[in-house]
């Protein structure tokens, strides 16, 4: 039996480059999804690969308190803190969804000291697509 020839597989290289310490990204995109019940802040690079994320739920808020603007503020602050160490200077902000967390998260991002290049609203708008659920009659009964 011949000795197997050692081959440097491309897979191994891919795994090494995905280690967090190696990546220094000067420019990124901050996605803020602000729904009525929660706010999720995701920090990605320009291509869309996620670096870190944080939400009102992971910050310790539960239930109705997750939808408040203060929770959105802490979530945004949390997400940016982990990324500021990696040396991100410029960022774009993409805000999605209605919700109270929109303004609060934007404020927190602005205060954190990261330079903002664009602020975009990317709330998805169907061109009359799927039928939304019926009006919430059950809520009033409780």
């Amino acid at each position, binding site marked *: 039996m011949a000795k197997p020839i050692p081959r440097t597989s491309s897979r191994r290289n891919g795994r090494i480059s995905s280690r967090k310490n190696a990546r220094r990204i000067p420019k990124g995109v901050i996605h803020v999804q602000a729904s009525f019940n929660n706010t999720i802040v995701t920090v990605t690079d320009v291509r869309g690969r996620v670096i870190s994320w944080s939400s009102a739920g992971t910050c310790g808020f539960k239930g109705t308190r997750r939808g408040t603007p203060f929770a959105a503020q802490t979530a945004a602050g949390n997400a940016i803190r982990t990324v500021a160490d990696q040396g991100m200077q410029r960022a774009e902000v993409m805000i999605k969804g209605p919700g109270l967390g929109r303004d609060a998260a934007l404020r927190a991002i*602005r205060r954190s000291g990261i330079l903002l290049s*664009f602020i975009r*609203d990317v709330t998805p708008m169907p061109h009359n697509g799927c039928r939304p*659920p019926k009006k919430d009659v059950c809520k009033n009964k409780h």
Partner: protein
Amino acid sequence: MAASSLSSFLSSLLLPKRPSPPLVDILCLLSQPHLRQTPSKRASLLATWGPSAPPSSFSSLHNATDISPILFPSLAYSSTLFFKSAYNVQIIVNDNEPEEKLLNRFRKEVLKAGVLLEAKRRRFFENKHEKKKRKAREAARKNRKRRPLPKAPKDIKHLANKERRGDEKDDNWDVPDVDLPYC
């Protein structure tokens, strides 16, 4: 030939992720009488693109966007299609802009685009009856804003006052001076 070179230039412009240079460059190209210079111009224009291009060219873009829909009707919505994700509202942040001013600008743009209203409306299904009611309400709001006070009621008020005075004169409010049996 000039048209084909222009179209190829346009296609090369639309690939990278920069909104401001294409419209500005197309306009300065058109202002040039000699289109033979396009190859050299193309190179110089491409050279001026850098990561710091947007802030300086934004002010010039403002003038360009006023006439660009007329010149290039198909490019009217190019900004929404230019980026990978279509967006509803975009704000380019200037340096050293105060926080509140930025927020207010964002909120105003969102209000103008009607994003929140639309999202609220699409949250639950509305049947024909609800839709009619909503449309009637919106139409009433629009009419109220457009026509605050029509002129007609002023004349009517004048007439009404005169009539009222006349009536009061005719009316007999005084008690007749007669001896009443029971008072």
